[in-house]
């Protein structure tokens, strides 16, 4: 078992080029992660059709697991992972544990997500979308904590969320109250550092460029 190696997990990844930067922390700091388990809701086939039309970046695939998983450098992508389901998260973590030979904590200690957004958003009025997105974030928080329980993680987990504080789809105060409803013992926002990212949509096209804030929720804190 590789000791002291820090890793991270990401949820709801889309396009390869827009993958979440897992080294960013609060106040413009950087905390290098040695390995990453990235997860995508889509199956590999659908993911490739939506996001990887001109080819897939992966050089290796992991066989003999219940979910499709592909490898590039020190990163695994696990497909068909619904971030609101604890068992899906457990499966992804276990694939990462087996491949990188690390503990569950090393992967789950830092979980990143960028702009979660409910599907079929264009059919909803904005208030309905905010409500749907709140439900989504809350379910994800609960699923992460449950997964931590199943995997025997005792430590407090960092759940990092990239979302603009003025994001009309889930403004900061709503995001924070939702994360707390999902079990976060504290939530903070980096108000000083500005991040600009390309953000894809749920339909797979190249995204547009937006400003975003980083929020940190503490999960699995048994106090």
């Amino acid at each position, binding site marked *: 078992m590789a000791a002291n190696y820090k890793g991270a997990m990401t949820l709801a990844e889309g396009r390869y*080029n827009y993958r979440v930067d897992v080294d960013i922390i609060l106040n413009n700091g950087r905390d290098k992660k040695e390995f990453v388990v990235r997860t995508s809701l889509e199956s590999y086939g659908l993911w490739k059709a939506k996001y990887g*039309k*001109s080819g897939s970046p992966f050089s290796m695939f992991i066989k003999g697991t219940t979910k499709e998983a592909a490898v590039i450098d020190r990163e695994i992508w696990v497909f068909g992972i619904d971030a609101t389901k604890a068992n899906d998260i457990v499966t992804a973590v276990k694939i990462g544990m087996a491949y990188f030979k690390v503990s569950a904590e090393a992967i789950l200690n830092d979980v990143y997500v960028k*702009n979660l957004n409910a599907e079929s*958003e*264009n059919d909803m009025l*904005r208030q309905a979308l905010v409500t749907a997105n709140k439900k989504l974030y809350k379910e994800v928080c609960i699923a992460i904590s449950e997964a931590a329980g199943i995997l025997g993680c005792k430590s407090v987990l960092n759940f990092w969320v990239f979302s*603009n504080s*003025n*994001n*009309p*789809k889930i403004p900061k105060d709503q995001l924070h109250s939702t994360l707390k409803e999902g079990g976060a013992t504290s939530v903070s926002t980096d108000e000083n550092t*500005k991040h*600009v990212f390309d*953000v894809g949509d749920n339909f797979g*096209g*190249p*995204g*547009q*460029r*937006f*400003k*975003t804030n980083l929020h940190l929720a503490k999960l699995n804190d048994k106090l």
Partner: protein
Amino acid sequence: MEILAVWLIHHKASMTLDSPMNMDGSEYIVGIGVVPATNMQEALQLFDAYLKKQDMAVLEAWKCEQYFPKNFSEISQKNSDINEVAQEALESNKISYVCGISSEALDCEEEQ
């Protein structure tokens, strides 16, 4: 017989909080509309209607050009995005949007 082409409309468009594209509370976005149409005038009309549906409107347009792959053959992220979206627009006959930068993101990038 009608021959369908793709038109690239380089523009700045207003956005509201109800615009589906808006993810940071921006007031406008600068980008390229990718519009399948039989001529430029039709493309501009279709694009206006497309934006209106999203609670957006053109504030300024500085170029409208017909898409030819050879004009975007130099390797860059921007060209690769334009090629991808233009090809899809041509096949699906659906309007799309590419290379957008929100006003909030523009402000940030100017500061940096």
